[in-house]
């Protein structure tokens, strides 16, 4: 049976969704990021913005400027240009090295998450910090990255009850992914740590630090070093970023 993907779905009168799979994988996510970059570069008339989920690209357009059938034809033509599931990532990506404190008051559900993943807390921290996590997409809240993928053991469910208030920089873990909250948030993800990172600075020239496709390496630090790093953020001393080849 031929794959139904990539597939086009109308979302109301002014949005079109291009889905690359019904499940997440790193090659699918790479296809999403590459296709979004291609749509942006094509600068199609009437397209007002694009966004990604883990497995799809959304185009929001002005139906006064382009009709559905025309736009769908242009998207089909772009899709036919190559096999997007080739794993090739867009350029201009960065690798961020971000200090984070794990466990304790800064990550009260670390032990629980580690136990569900079948390991001790120290082994979980080591595994997380050894993984180069890709910013697979950004969404839900301003500047919130979905990071993945962690090793298979971390395929643990979200909690059914919500954590009432995970602080800014809080790290959540579930389903082989992590999220890093840019503002205090209510969440069902297990709260395992806190990063010294400011993902949404509304008054800055570059308000959103991360781009989808960037990578993050966390470095486990002491509470004291974490607090120094947070103080550094306030004076403009950022986490370290280098451009990926």
């Amino acid at each position, binding site marked *: 049976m031929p794959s139904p993907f990539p597939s086009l*779905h*109308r*979302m*109301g*009168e*002014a*949005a079109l*969704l291009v*889905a690359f799979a*019904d*499940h*997440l994988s790193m090659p699918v996510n790479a296809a999403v990021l590459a296709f*979004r970059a291609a749509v942006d570069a094509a600068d199609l008339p009437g397209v*007002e*913005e*694009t*966004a*990604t*989920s*883990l*497995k*799809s690209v*959304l185009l*929001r357009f002005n*139906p*006064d400027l382009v009709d*559905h059938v025309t736009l769908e034809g242009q998207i089909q033509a772009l899709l036919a240009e190559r096999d997007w599931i080739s794993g090739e990532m867009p350029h201009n990506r960065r690798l961020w090295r971000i200090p984070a404190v794990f466990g304790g008051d800064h990550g009260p559900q670390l032990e629980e998450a580690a136990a569900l993943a079948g390991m001790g807390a120290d082994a979980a921290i080591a595994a997380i910090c050894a993984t180069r996590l890709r910013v697979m*997409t*950004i*969404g*839900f*809240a*301003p*500047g*919130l990255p*979905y990071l993945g993928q962690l090793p298979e053991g971390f395929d643990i469910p979200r909690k059914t009850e919500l954590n009432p208030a995970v602080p800014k920089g809080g790290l959540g873990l579930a389903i082989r992914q992590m999220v890093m909250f*840019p*503002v205090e948030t209510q969440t069902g993800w297990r709260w395992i740590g806190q990063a010294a990172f400011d993902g*949404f600075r*509304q*008054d800055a020239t570059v*308000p*959103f630090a991360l781009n*989808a496709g960037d990578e993050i390496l966390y470095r486990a630090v002491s509470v004291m070093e974490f607090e120094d790093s947070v103080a550094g953020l306030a004076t403009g001393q950022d986490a370290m970023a280098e451009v990926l080849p």
Partner: protein
Amino acid sequence: MSAALQIIAAGPGLSLQDYGRPGFLGRGLSRGGAMDPLALAEGAALMLMPAGDALAIEMAGAGGRFRAEGAALLIALTGAPMVAELDGVRLPWPGSFLMPKGAELRIGGALAGSYGYLSVAGLQAPRVLGARSAHLAGGIGGRLAAGASLPCVPAPNPGGLKLVPEDRFGGGTIRILPSAQTDQFSAATLARFEATEFRKDARASRMGARMAQDGGGFSQDAHLGILSEIIVPGDIQVIGDGAPFVLLPECQTMGGYPRIATVISADLARVAQAAPGAPIRFRFVTLDEALAARTAAAKHRKTLPDGVVSRVRNPADIADLLAYQLVGGVISATHDPED
């Protein structure tokens, strides 16, 4: 002292709103902006100002007390009609008015609908990411509180104008289109969805509104387990208990609940404005019908200034005013936050 609107007392849901900040969906920031953008344009038309850069105080459910500082101010009242008095004199709604220097404006509870708008000529606020709207969920701006002094300009004209507002405050039939996951619901479920009369749940916010009803839920018939997908305002997600939840302009940008349909742009403000408990039905329409409604709404917004007329004293108007006051007196006894 320069011209300003002083907030003496604030209801619980006051914020500055313009048309929002589209363009940051891929950054996790929904467009936000006024729940009822037509009310912004109506306010501008009543003040004889351009609609394009309208900014107003959005008032959820009830208003507050305000004083004109430094100069006489030009104001307009639009959106959900509320009990309003200027120095003790009842004001008709919608309309534009001259607020003499030092005068006090009291705005009480909504008589119909949810969101009232207080426009002030020359109202200023800093731009964040290109817009002046508060985005409460995203931490941009915030609620307005007592003690705030909002800079504006001395009245450029005396107001005294009115218009006939489009009726959008009582719920009713909301037109919808399919969304990306509509085909995961069975024809029977979709038919029941269209046949059900919902009530707007009282726990609505700028992020979304739950639709209550007494029958069974509307979960997918074949549960496919959706990986989080991008949300656009208007999407109707079916949450865990099977209740439909209409996402409004300040919604999150990603969600894992299936979307049964999406509200057409021309009808979204009607969902936001419906009062708690107001009846709501959904009806699928064709894409052509949705686009025609979108075009008609844009034309209506553009031609608002043509419908603005002077409030003249004639017997017909006086009868209308009396009717408003009769209703207002009954409602304000329970809804006026000043009581």
